[in-house]
């Protein structure tokens, strides 16, 4: 069975601090995809990144970076120099390699950035 665990329920940091959101996953599939989504107060989920199981390279996009480690089944997300606009709920998610597969979500981490 597939499972995604986000152990951090809530995180609060002061603006400009770096913050890492943890994600641990379980799957028996050899081909799978990992995702991060952001849910701002408006409610709509915003896609941030997709990673397939064969690509363990870390990715950086501006202040955002992702660390994928198959050895520990983790896909952690770091925000560097956080800003108030980063305040949101962040979800890590997992799906298998087929186009008809469902996406399994973690319980989410609520991130609050204080000015």
């Amino acid at each position, binding site marked *: 069975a597939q499972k995604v665990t986000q152990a951090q329920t809530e995180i609060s940091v002061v603006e400009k601090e770096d913050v890492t959101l943890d994600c641990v996953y379980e799957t028996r599939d050899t081909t799978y995809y990992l995702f991060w989504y952001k849910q701002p107060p408006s409610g*709509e989920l915003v*896609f941030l990144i997709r990673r*397939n199981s064969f690509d363990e390279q870390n990715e950086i996009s501006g202040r955002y970076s992702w660390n994928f480690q198959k050895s520990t089944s983790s896909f952690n997300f770091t925000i560097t120099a956080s800003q108030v606009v980063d305040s949101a709920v962040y979800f890590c998610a997992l799906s298998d390699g087929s*186009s008809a597969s469902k*996406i399994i*979500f973690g319980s989410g981490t609520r991130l609050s950035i204080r000015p």
Partner: protein
Amino acid sequence: DVKVTQSSRYLVKRTGEKVFLECVQDMDHENMFWYRQDPGLGLRLIYFSYDVKMKEKGDIPEGYSVSREKKERFSLILESASTNQTSMYLCASKRETEAFFGQGTRLTVV
């Protein structure tokens, strides 16, 4: 841009009512999903559909049904609404591996 539209942003219904939540996508995606979101539980899959008239149960299908008569539209039906179905409902459509979400419907059952 991909657009997934849910018919209502906020909805208040009475216990026992039949409730329809509508979702429409404009990108010809085969796969569509209904999730509910509750604090501390993340998004839980209710039903999904990988083609017209095809449906599969998700993790929490009890008390819900779905309809997919046309490719672009996926409806979630609460046959007899109960207070424990008060929640945020999110629709998504997907092609290949990326899913796109609607803005959500916050349903309150009183």
